[in-house]
């Protein structure tokens, strides 16, 4: 668009008025163009496909884990006792891990509680380390202490 226009304008004499028009046109183009790129970026975030290229399929759940998830129709609540802000790297890592499970079971809810600012809850539930998780399914609950061990199980 820009190139075709400018080639045509080479033949007209450039005075003050046409220059103002050209400037206006180029600003309009810039804004529209950036808006389109922003829109593309938004779409690419909303609809995306992910491929795990590792040889062991480390970032994909194993068949066995998926089968277990399928046998759990009720909602599952996972509370992570991980300190840090909502966007701290530690919490993002937890979110990332749980997202892998959420892909196969939509009704998994993840909640964060900061163990440093809530010492009463920590004592009551017997939480021993930062980053511990408690999974609640129907009326049962289980402590997940070793984050690394849980992270590894999918691939084995």
């Amino acid at each position: 668009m820009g190139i075709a226009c400018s080639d045509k304008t080479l033949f007209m004499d450039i005075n003050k008025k046409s220059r103002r028009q050209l400037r206006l046109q180029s600003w309009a183009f810039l804004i529209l163009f950036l808006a389109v790129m922003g829109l593309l970026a938004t779409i690419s975030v909303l609809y995306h496909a992910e491929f795990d290229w590792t040889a062991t399929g480390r970032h994909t759940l194993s068949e066995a884990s998926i089968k277990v998830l399928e046998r759990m129709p009720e909602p599952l609540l996972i509370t992570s006792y991980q300190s840090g802000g909502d966007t701290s790297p530690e919490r993002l890592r937890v979110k990332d891990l749980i997202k892998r499970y959420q892909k196969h079971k939509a009704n998994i809810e993840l909640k964060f509680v900061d163990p440093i600012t809530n010492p009463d809850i920590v004592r009551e539930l017997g939480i021993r380390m930062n980053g511990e998780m408690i999974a609640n399914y129907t009326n049962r609950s289980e402590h997940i202490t070793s984050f690394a061990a849980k992270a590894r199980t999918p691939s084995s």
Partner: protein
Amino acid sequence: MIFHIAARELRTLFLSPLAWSVIGVVQFILSLLFLFALQDFLMTHQARLHMYAMPLGVTDFVVAPLYSSASIILMLVVPLITMRVISDERRNRSLTLLFSAPLSMTEIVVGKYLGVLAFLIIMTLIYSLMPLSLLFAGSIDFGLFFSLLLGAILMVAAFAAIGVFMSSLTAQPTIAAISTFGVLLLLWIFNMAGNSPGSEGVFNLLSYLSMLTHYESFSRGIVNSTDVLYFVIVIVTFMVLSIRRLDGDRLQR
């Protein structure tokens, strides 16, 4: 026609001592880092991995860090390669000559960009021989390796697009280099805002803009369409902006 310009640009790069010394220095530093990482792996990690039966290997401990260091070194080096691409033409007053040639602005800019990109890809392939040399001693995770390679190439392509744009803005190569470096560093550290308290929306935007976020998944062996498209969007945006910039010059003279 685009490829004529690209080939000429590539030839000019290799005629100057700059390109050769850049390849030499980058290769030297990266091979040292590779050596250190490999030694570290053999001395400590290997035994521990065996003990805990972890599904990780030499590719995770040696090859992935190599590409991470390479991306940081290239952030410093790419501005030096791209700085004179267009600003030199402006300084030598040969830009007017180029304008009067029967070429569209798109052909000129994209051609020059492809020339620089070819050089950077050659450099990437040269240091990628180091991980491949591990094949003499054992096996590597080829899926992860190709994911790293794809990430590295997309990243230098984005670096180069930003560099070419900065070079189209000014007649001084040094100014082009330092401003390219500034933009690259800014895009790199954007996601550090994540550690400070703030709303999640702002964080998500900043972390989307940050190159580090998008490179990170490649380094774990995950190829996500969002990340690939991010780099494509950056490249297209800066290409179009440089074309517009030169187009404006052609008119207002």
